[in-house]
């Protein structure tokens, strides 16, 4: 693969001008544009995601570390610092009180101690580092010791100060007592001297009393020295003075015992000595405590708090180094992945560009051809449309004429249909009349037959009448004969007989006439019957004809109706044709304008193709598309036989 890429490096570097199918057979993948772009971005996106997730993970780690540092470690350091600061304040105030012994300093120190208590309690709850918590416990122990020592010291200071006051007042009292005693001794001495000789008084002074006075004065002087020494001792509580003081006071006590006047204040001096020694002991104890405990404890606490702070700082320093290393590693990793991602993005960019540009170039080729074709076609369409418009106009005129004719035909057909309908009705009426006539004929025939029968009956009756007339005649003859025989008597009768005979003759004549009439009637009836039959047959023929006529008229009516429907259909068709023609006309106009638009669009399309080409290839030269250069031409040879739209000939 690597060798393959190396050999075809120039193809890879200039992918647009090469036949990719030869260079990239592996990468000829059938995918749509979206998939191509997406498939190109996916690896880059994955790498980016890796970078992002790596960064996120690292930043979270860093954040947790920083949070730990800022919250736990920095908090511990802050606490340790505040402890150190408070210790310094406390120490300052304590030492201020220890050296200055002022009440306000004591109060301040107590406030700081209270503050320290609170701080320690709070710190125990808030401190998080194990080693620092351990240190804190040590600080607490030492601090409690320190505070304990301080409270004891303050007690001692108070006690010492009270003792000091007592020493001062006692010293004063003793001094006054001594003074009084000395004055007493002197007075005694002076009194003794006054009792003797004034001039030689001096020699009479009691030497023992004088010695006592001297001793008393010495003792007083010694006590004054003691008080001086006490004052000096109280300046700085130097234990050297304490020892001296004890010795001096022992001497004073001894002297006091030897002087009876001073015996009364022996106990006071003893008490004084005890107070001074007690004060010295307290001062020594305090000095010891201050030197050995209180003063070293404060630096110890400070050192411990410093230790806690150092621990925090060390942890922070370690964390900082770790974080720096981590950041460097992450940075390197991200840079590495970034470089890989950049290279991958570049490579994929080339590949995707190829995969996207090649089809676009193909499409551009096709589009250019299409644009050319469309330009030609649009001209053709324009001409065709104009012709079509003219034809449509002519056609519309013809259709209008046809439409008018059809309207006339329609009205005529409608008249025909109406007439045929009326004829049909008339024929139906005629059929009814013929049938009625037939029936009448049948009745007539029957009546005539009945008449014929009646005539025959009448003929028989007339025969009977004739016979009767004959008989009557005979009888009249007989009667005439008889009447003749009867003579006169019978003359009337003979007349009657004659009359009867005449009547008979007339009857016979009438009968004969009637008979002949009846014969004639029968004859006529017979003829009438024949005529009726003939008429009947004629009517039958008429009926048949009428029926045929009716059928024909019905057919005519039906035909007329069908014709009417047909004409209506034709009408519709014509109107449809008219509409179509109008539409055609409109379409032709639209086509004409569309062809113009098409032409414009084709020009626009060419411009777009030029722009696209510029976008894709970086130059607006579309020559390569038709010049047949490069791989495009090999794949898309120019079409020799351009398809032409069929031109309509009018």
């Amino acid at each position, binding site marked *: 693969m690597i060798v393959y890429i190396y050999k075809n490096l120039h193809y890879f570097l200039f992918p647009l001008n090469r036949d990719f199918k030869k260079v990239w057979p592996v990468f000829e993948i059938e995918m749509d544009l979206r998939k191509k772009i997406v498939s190109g971005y996916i690896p880059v996106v994955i790498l980016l995601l890796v970078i992002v997730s790596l960064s996120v993970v690292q930043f979270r780690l860093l954040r947790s570390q920083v949070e730990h540092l800022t919250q736990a470690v920095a908090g511990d350091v802050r606490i340790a610092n505040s402890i150190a600061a408070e210790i310094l304040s406390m120490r300052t105030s304590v030492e201020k009180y220890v050296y200055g012994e002022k009440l306000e300093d004591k109060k301040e120190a107590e406030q700081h101690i209270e503050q320290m208590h609170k701080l320690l309690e709070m710190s125990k709850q808030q401190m998080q580092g194990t080693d620092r918590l351990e240190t804190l416990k040590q600080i607490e122990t030492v601090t409690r010791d320190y505070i304990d020592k301080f409270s004891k010291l303050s007690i001692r200071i108070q006690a010492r100060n009270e003792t000091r006051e007592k020493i001062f007042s006692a010293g004063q009292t003793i001094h006054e007592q001594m003074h009084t005693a000395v004055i007493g001794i002197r007075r005694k001495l002076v009194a003794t001297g006054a009792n003797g000789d004034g001039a030689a008084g001096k020699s009479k002074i009691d030497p023992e009393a004088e010695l006592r006075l001297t001793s008393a004065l010495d003792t007083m002087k010694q006590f004054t020295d003691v008080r001086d020494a006490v004052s000096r001792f109280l300046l700085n509580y130097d234990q050297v003075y304490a020892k001296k003081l004890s010795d001096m006071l022992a001497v004073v006590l001894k002297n006091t015992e030897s002087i009876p006047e001073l015996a009364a204040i022996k106990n006071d001096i003893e008490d004084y000595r005890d107070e001074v020694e007690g004060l010295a002991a307290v001062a020594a104890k*305090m000095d010891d405590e201050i030197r050995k405990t209180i003063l070293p404890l404060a630096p110890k606490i400070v050192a411990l708090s410093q230790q806690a702070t150092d621990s925090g700082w060390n942890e922070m320093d370690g964390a900082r180094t770790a974080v720096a290393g981590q950041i460097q590693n992450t940075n390197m990793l991200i840079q590495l992945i970034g470089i890989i991602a950049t290279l991958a993005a570049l490579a994929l960019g080339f590949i995707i560009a190829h995969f996207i540009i090649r089809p676009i170039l193909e499409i551009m080729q096709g589009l250019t051809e299409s644009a050319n074709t469309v330009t030609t076609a649009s001209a053709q369409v324009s001409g065709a449309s104009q012709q079509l418009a003219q034809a449509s106009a002519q056609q519309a005129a013809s259709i209008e004429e046809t439409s008018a004719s059809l309207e006339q035909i329609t009205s005529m057909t409608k008249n025909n249909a109406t007439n045929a309908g009326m004829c049909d009705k008339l024929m139906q009426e005629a059929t009814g009349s013929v049938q009625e006539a037939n029936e009448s004929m049948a009745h007539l025939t029957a009546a005539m037959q009945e008449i014929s029968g009646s005539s025959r009956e009448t003929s028989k009756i007339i025969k009977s009448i004739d016979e009767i007339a004959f008989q009557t005649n005979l009888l009249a003859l007989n009667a005439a004969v008889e009447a003749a025989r009867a003579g006169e008597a019978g003359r009337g009768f003979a007349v009657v007989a004659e009359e009867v005979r005449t009547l008979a003759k007339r009857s016979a004549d009438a009968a004969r006439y009637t008979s002949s009439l009846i014969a004639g009637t029968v004859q006529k009836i017979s003829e009438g019957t024949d005529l009726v039959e003939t008429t009947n047959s004629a009517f039958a023929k008429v009926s048949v004809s009428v029926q045929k006529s009716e059928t024909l008229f019905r057919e005519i009516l039906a035909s007329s109706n069908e014709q009417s429907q047909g004409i209506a259909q034709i009408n519709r068709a014509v109107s449809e044709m008219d509409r179509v023609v109008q539409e055609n006309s409109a379409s032709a106009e639209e086509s004409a304008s569309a062809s113009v638009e098409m032409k414009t669009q084709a020009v626009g399309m060419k411009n777009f193709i030029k722009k696209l080409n510029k976008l894709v290839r970086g130059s607006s030269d579309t020559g390569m598309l038709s010049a047949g250069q490069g791989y495009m031409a090999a794949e898309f040879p120019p079409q020799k036989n351009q398809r032409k739209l069929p031109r309509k000939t009018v």
Partner: protein
Amino acid sequence: MKKAYVFLYIIVIGIVISMPPAYAADGKALFMSKCGSCHRTGGEASVFAPTKCASTQWERFFEAGKHARIKDISSLVKPDESAAIKEYLKAHAADSDQPEAIGLK
């Protein structure tokens, strides 16, 4: 049951052994009751605390019988009680390791 008694015995012995010397507790109580009978607020004598004096002072105070100079309290305080009070005061004197500034009321 036997075991329980043995256990109880051990506990009692332990408590007795761990208890401080009898006079210390007694000393404070005696100090409060005996001394406090006169040395109290509004009392015959003024109030004081063990830190009034140093240890040596208390020693000398008792040895020299200084109290008798002001008032004889031998009928009130027996010698052993006096010793216990002295030990208590010395143990809580101003130069002692446990100075006691809160005394009688």
